[in-house]
């Protein structure tokens, strides 16, 4: 249980959404040899598709109980909220057709789309929506969502088509939470094993450790799916998945690394590149010497050559971040922070001398052994640090050990890991570094940062809030809270005759847009 919850925190993707009005400059480009516009044949309606996934969905399928990223990713196609995120992180109407927000921000009235049908054939009523909110608030395992819903004092059906939410205090991120309250039929109790939603795909069956099968929802309210049948086939690990891809028994797979992509035959598959939506960094424990010294941390930042890391581990793929925000966060992301610490061995040495470590020191980098990209990054870091006289050793541990000892127990010097956001709110990435936060694994303790975060949380004006969050992010860079590296490249491979894959700033795969071409 414990493991599951933590998984939800990091790996777990953020299906909750956020107010990202500005378009994220999300890159969705084909790698050489896979020209997306070039393959624009005639769109085919129908067909069956097998998506390979390399981890078991060890999870409940209940919309409020599921925790793993993989499960959310699959069920994104089955469940919908009143609103849902689009590829730019905006919220578009889904089960609701429109909504009205009161001037004081304390009341939201959602008007339901007429004749939206659940997969069981029943029409969605205001009562279903109210019941869904109630069940979600009472049972959700997502603590951030539970906290947000606790400020919703009343959910009422105004009439058959309208539902009103009353809040005790304004919440600028409310829509992102509304999007994660999936609407399911009132009184239906079997979602854990046979989910019923309103999404473009219907749940057909699930065989634990084997597959999840979905089919097209022919009565979808919107522009439905192209594919008739969708099978998520579960593989033991990426090796098994790559074997299956090589043999052609899988049509599509996501979350691959460049090394894995390179083992495939380019004649059969095309590759689409996006980002993983996480912040990979060398996270430093501020309670442990010498990382309590800002100069040492800055020295590390100068000593590490991010470009070289990208070149060595991913043939240059990946996006530099510079702070605890990744680029898909659009309006919160400040590109100018990326170059704050250019690679400079001399400067690093000078800072180390000033800090009292002219001959460097010894340190340990703890890495979970199941995440190859983090291990590879750490390996390069070890080499780079040697050049400034720091003798780093790699300590590879089991994921479970990493969670209990390193993350929960905070018994570590430094670690390479990626943090992602449980929701597309800036707080999801930044709150954890507030000195009193439970998730502050690095023991970051900066009064100015705490103050900025407090102000941001209380700011009602959108622009002001964004500015404050940006300042907070900048503060992380200035104090060299961690050695920020990158948002990893995420590769999706699919058969040549497939098209339409769209990246989201969230950990989801929107299969409704995927289609075959003639």
């Amino acid at each position, binding site marked *: *249980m*414990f*493991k*599951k*919850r933590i998984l939800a925190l990091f790996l777990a993707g953020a299906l909750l959404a956020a107010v990202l009005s500005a378009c994220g400059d999300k890159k969705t480009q084909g790698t050489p040899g896979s020209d997306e516009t070039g393959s624009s044949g005639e769109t085919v309606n129908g067909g069956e598709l097998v998506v390979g996934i390399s981890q*078991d969905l*060890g*999870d*409940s*399928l*209940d919309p409020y*109980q599921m925790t793993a990223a993989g499960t959310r990713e699959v069920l994104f196609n089955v469940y919908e909220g009143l609103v849902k995120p689009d590829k730019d992180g905006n919220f578009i109407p889904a089960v609701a057709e429109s909504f009205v927000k009161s001037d004081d921000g304390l009341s939201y009235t959602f008007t339901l789309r007429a004749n939206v049908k659940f997969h069981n054939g029943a029409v969605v009523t205001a009562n279903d929506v109210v019941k869904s909110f109630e069940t979600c608030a009472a049972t959700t*395992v997502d*603590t951030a969502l539970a906290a947000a819903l606790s400020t919703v004092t009343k959910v009422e059906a105004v009439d058959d088509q309208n539902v009103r939410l009353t809040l005790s205090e304004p919440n600028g991120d409310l829509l992102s939470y509304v999007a994660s309250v999936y609407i399911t039929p009132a009184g239906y109790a079997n979602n*854990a*094993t046979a989910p019923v939603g309103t999404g473009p795909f219907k749940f057909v069956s699930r*065989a*634990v*450790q*084997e597959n999840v099968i979905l089919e097209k929802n022919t009565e979808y309210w919107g522009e439905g799916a192209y594919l008739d049948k969708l099978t998520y086939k579960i*593989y*033991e*690990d990426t*090796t*098994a*998945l790559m*074997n*299956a891809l*090589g*043999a052609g*028994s899988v049509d599509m797979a996501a979350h691959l690394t460049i090394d894995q992509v390179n083992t495939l035959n380019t004649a059969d598959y095309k590759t689409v590149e996006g980002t993983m939506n996480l912040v990979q960094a060398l996270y430093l424990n501020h309670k442990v010497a010498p990382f309590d010294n800002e100069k040492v941390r800055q020295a590390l930042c100068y000593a590490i050559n991010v470009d070289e890391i990208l070149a060595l581990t991913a043939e240059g793929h990946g996006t530099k971040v510079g702070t605890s925000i990744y680029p898909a966060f659009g309006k919160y992301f400040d590109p100018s922070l990326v170059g704050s610490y250019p690679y400079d061995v001399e400067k690093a040495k000078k800072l180390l001398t000033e800090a009292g470590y002219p001959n460097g020191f010894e340190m340990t980098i703890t890495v979970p052994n199941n995440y190859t990209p983090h291990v590879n990054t750490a390996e390069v870091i070890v080499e780079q640090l040697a050049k400034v006289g720091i003798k780093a050793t790699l300590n590879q541990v089991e994921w479970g050990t990493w969670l209990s000892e390193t993350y929960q127990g905070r018994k570590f010097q430094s670690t390479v890991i990626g943090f992602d956001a449980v929701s597309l709110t800036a707080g999801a990435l930044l709150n954890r570094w507030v000195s009193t936060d439970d998730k502050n694994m690095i023991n970051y303790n900066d009064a100015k940062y705490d103050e900025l975060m407090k102000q941001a949380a209380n700011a009602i004006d959108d622009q002001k809030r964004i500015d404050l969050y940006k300042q907070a992010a900048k503060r992380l860079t200035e104090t060299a809270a961690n050695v920020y590296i990158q948002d990893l490249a995420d590769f999706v491979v699919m058969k040549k005759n497939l098209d339409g894959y769209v990246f989201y700033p969230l950990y989801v795969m929107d299969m409704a847009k995927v289609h075959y071409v003639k």
Partner: protein
Amino acid sequence: MKYIAKKLFTLIITLFIVSLLAFLAFQIIPGNAAVLRLGTNGTPQQVEQLKEEMGLNRPIAIQYGDWLGSFLSGDMGVSYTYNMPVEDMIAQKLPSTVALVLLGCLLMVVLSIPIGIFTARHAGGVVDRVMTVLNQVLMSIPPVFVGILFSFVFGITLRVFIPGDFVSWDENITQFLVFMFFPALSIALSRVAMTVKLLRSSLLDEMDKNYIRTAFSRGHSRDTALRQHALRNSLVPVVVFMAVSAAEMVAAGIIIEQVFAIPGIGRLLIASIGTYDFPVVQAIVLILATWVVVVNFLADILSQYIDPRVRLG
């Protein structure tokens, strides 16, 4: 008949004890079901409330009776991890495991009896000596390694099957059988070697006995004597051994399912041990234990039944 009744009684007692142990074992484990279900966000009050709801505050004996009762009526509880009825999960997984074990048993019989007879007939020859050494080697290769070797040779190199890409029997029965052949052979191989060795020595023992000599003196050829007389008697220990092997193969199957990524109950068991999914582990352990006990029981009965000495006497 009396013997069978007595054995049957022991069988029921054994199963009862096994079920009691399976139940009690999971009572000792730190952290009760309620705590585990709530995870890190549970408050003491919530735990207490859930314990009451789940009936964990009742006396152990009543809980056990309840559990056994519902287990026998097919209700095996709900998985903590998947939130699914355990009996449904097991029903999904059982066919693959049963197929694996049956195929393994089949291979064991089909391979070991002809080879055993052959080596006995040519005892002392070159082939026999080579087989004896080969047998010893085969007995020494762990099924895990056999499986990995098969994956490499027949999977990655020869592409007879795709390692890790399990094909379900309802998807494509031919591909399923091709895929299952290798794991089945992996668990059968060391057993084949043992059976060959046993059959060979048992045959040679029989051949030395007086009645075979009499058969010779009556003008039967060595081959006829072997086939008509010695084989029948020397099969007794072999059949018993193979029956016991059927129980052992289930255990080897747990591991081999992991090697070939076969979604059977073995792999479910390993995964559930990892996530401390007690209801699933409890159910699988009980099912596997029942299989072992029943197979041993049948082996007992079988040996009594086919052994002519017992029948005559």
